[in-house]
């Protein structure tokens, strides 16, 4: 089947098998390998992307279902070399170790902040329930999400264009 999808701002038109999952389309067809696969039961959330502005587990969406839609992956978050405030907060709060869950965690966190711009600890924990991390014990992830909330404008949605944070933050510094 023929699909047309916008991924991270670029249009793609491709022929796909009906059974192709969105995550495989992203990874194997158009090379968006920033989104990863951690399970085959839609339990881990490693593959989370935004489909028309809302988080989905891309292993449970068919590529054909994304026809005509806009997909944002972790690779499409930073603009002009500037990290998204959630990416920045993950770095500053040491919210990742191996980093395998991180793309999905970041995408889910952005969606949860769109729903609730100032979540308390419990709300963050509940909002991330579908994303598993084996390394961090979640504490610093929770801290990062709440920290990011402080740096995003009220109502700033998942669309990275609407992020008000503009200060460039280098990685590796203190």
């Amino acid at each position, binding site marked *: 089947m023929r699909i047309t999808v916008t991924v991270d701002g670029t249009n793609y038109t491709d022929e796909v098998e009906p*059974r192709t999952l969105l995550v495989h389309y992203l*990874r194997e067809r158009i090379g*968006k*390998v*920033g*989104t*990863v*696969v*951690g*399970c*085959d*039961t839609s*339990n*881990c959330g*490693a593959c989370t992307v935004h489909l028309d502005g809302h988080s989905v587990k891309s292993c449970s969406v068919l590529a054909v279902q994304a026809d005509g839609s806009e997909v944002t*992956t*972790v*690779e499409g*978050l*930073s603009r002009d070399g500037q*990290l998204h405030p959630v*990416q920045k907060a*993950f*770095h*500053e709060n*040491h919210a*990742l*170790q*191996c*980093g*395998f*869950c*991180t*793309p999905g965690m*970041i995408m889910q966190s952005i969606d949860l902040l769109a729903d609730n711009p100032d979540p308390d*600890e419990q709300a*963050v*924990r*509940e909002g*991330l*329930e*579908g*994303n*598993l*991390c*084996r*390394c*961090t*014990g*979640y*504490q*610093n*992830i*929770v801290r990062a999400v709440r920290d990011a909330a402080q740096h995003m404008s009220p109502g700033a949605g998942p669309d990275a264009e609407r992020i008000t944070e503009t200060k460039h933050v280098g*990685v*590796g*510094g*203190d």
Partner: protein
Amino acid sequence: MTATIEPEVGKSRRRKEDERLITGRTRWTDNITLPGMLHMAVLRSPFAHAKIVSIDTSAAKNAPGVVAVFTATDLDPDSSIGMPCAWPITPDMKAPRRPVLAADQVNFAGEGVAVVVARSSAEAHDALEEIDVEYDELPVILDMEAAIADGAPLVHEDQGSNTSAVWKFDSAEAGTGSNVEDAISSSEIVVKRRFRQQRLIPAFMEPRACVVDPTGAQTTMWSATQVPHILRVMAALTLGIPEHKLRVIAPDVGGGFGGKIGVLPEEMMSLLVAQKLGKPVKWNESRSETMLAAHHGRDQIQDITISANADGTVTGLKVELLANLGAYNGLVGTGVPILGAFMFNAIYKFPAYHFACTNVYTTTTLTDAYRGAGRPEATFAIERIMDELADELGMDPLELREKNWIKHEEFPFTTVCGLTYDSGNYEAATEKAKQLFDYDGLRAEQERRRASKDKVQLGLGISTFTEMCGLAPSRVLGSLDYGAGGWEHAAIRMLPTGKVEVITGASAHGQGHETAWSQIVADQLGVAFEDIEVIHGDTQSSHKGMDTYGSRSLVVGGIAVVKAAEKVVAKAKPIAAHLLECAEEDLEFAGGKFTVKGTDTSTTMGDVALAVFAAHNLPDGVEPSLDSDATFDPENFSYPHGTHLCAAEVDTETGRVKLRSYVCVDDVGVAVNPLIVEGQVHGGLAQGIAQALFEGTVHDESGTLTTGTFADYLLPSAVDLPSFTTDRTETPSTTNPLGAKGVGEAGTIASTPAVVNAVIDAVRQFGVNDIEMPLTPMRVWHAIRYGTTDAGGPGNEAGGGLGSIDATGGAL
């Protein structure tokens, strides 16, 4: 070049690694795609134990996209390839051959039987369905005690027994202590308990994968492994590939926790298949395959006897273990209980100790190292039985621990196992933890809740611990019959512009080596943190190494970096003296500068590097190079320790456990990067708490793993865990120049008993003195209701007990 003045070691540096990981520009093995690459999929046995009568691959060979199908006879016609075991723990240890693919018989559900190679992964998996295997089922052997009983059916008929080996340590025989039987028979109190360490799945988030490219001058293999260096040697030895013709790369690796320490049959299959076909081949497993076929951890039955005087002084400890190896010997799984053998006496001054372990084969997935490898099991047993002893004596559990632990002024202290603990301060860590926890306040609340018969009861759990990090002095490994040394390698390349490349043999998978090593080198050479690049995980650039496991990276690998840096300074000094036209003795080196003593005449390490590059003006006979390397073999282990306190609320009507607060004070010696240390502790706590409350495998009677996906195997999510209060004390290790001790496993080791002790403490008033892990609501409820341990599997908990909530009220 910027000279660094403020020390880097001790700073909470944000990690260098993060940039690629938060932007999705990571190099996972599964991201690697090569021209003409084929995909390999493995057909796995659905039976736990069966003879293979026949395999028909003809339909699969004709399936769309299929390039080749291999069975054991195609892949290994001489049956000569056996997967390696690096740890023959006794001279008579049984060594059943683990073939790359099962040929005549399968010995666990999930064992590979055939492989398909196809143009796409989907086509390879589709074709697996076309392979027709006829099996003749054999008896399933799941229970360890039944497995070693007389007349039991055998996993490996040719081995004559399911007992792999028996390994013993006795303090009287070793001359490190007195006789345990005498201690037990002459003591005023003896407590005996049986604990079970349920089987766990390491569950790193990135499934295993490898890509083999046989098309270059060397064969290149990328693998999601913890041990690229060991893998290269083992692949060379196992398959006969000349070592110099094989390059192994561990790119970014998404977690390991010991679970990626094995040398995999799938890695060997990929190598064989790629070489046979002359094309690059990728193998990438699904999560369900990981759960089934990647090694599991723990799985011990522990019979513990402790004896004491009425005042609480412990007189002896006897430990008898059954350890489930699964169907074969893993790379180091045979030795996991042996690592634990040295830790059962923990932080205590026990005078008599006896340890015996029987390793058992069953028809299950093999077990091998899992975060802590042997030490969590040991710490659990001793910290649980100390609580039981305290209860029998009517003592406060903390007071009992204080009575028996090694006092600060007694270090260095040689234990009943013969290990010498270099430093520690259990008093300081415990005092700090008590303050942070509000121990006395919580005890008072516990009393109030008990008195008011509150439906939610409070329990306080204590666990103190130590472990041996920095695996390991090579001679110690040798004395334990381990097949390799415990050294680590590092190299430093001073580049002409004053920037630095650091090469380390410790291959990281999330631990932040790039950051920590940069901090170490920045201090050693006075080079800016940003001007340092750390290279690891590639046998071509990092040609020597023993890799990352057992909290060894910093205390072995980090020290190798220090040693290499010292050599760089030593090489630079005569050159600096020559440039400054002074005697070498007149120079001092600090903050990246060589200064003539008592003057402000100086030159920098960067100037020297440039002078070496130009090589126009060097002292006579000096080699134009500052590059150095060092191999460090530790003299002793390091012994981090800590005190963990857990407050658990138990709903006595539903059995549900809620962690009210968790405080730990760990002493990891000098923390190179406190931020990374804290992160490691958090993650470790989550894993240890998960063993206590959530995780555990279940097999049905046919040997099928019924907890084979993340839907059935309860990995905790963010809502299942609390926030932790973590703090540190700092008693530097005296056996390495950084004073560091290691931290990777601390949280996991200490938290499991802290949580279980807390839950037992909450419900002890109902006559409960043990609950088997994981402490599911069903089990806790059952224990409250009947005052006994429920021996049912974790699968039992699925709501069964909750249906009876109403019936329990009266029992309280």
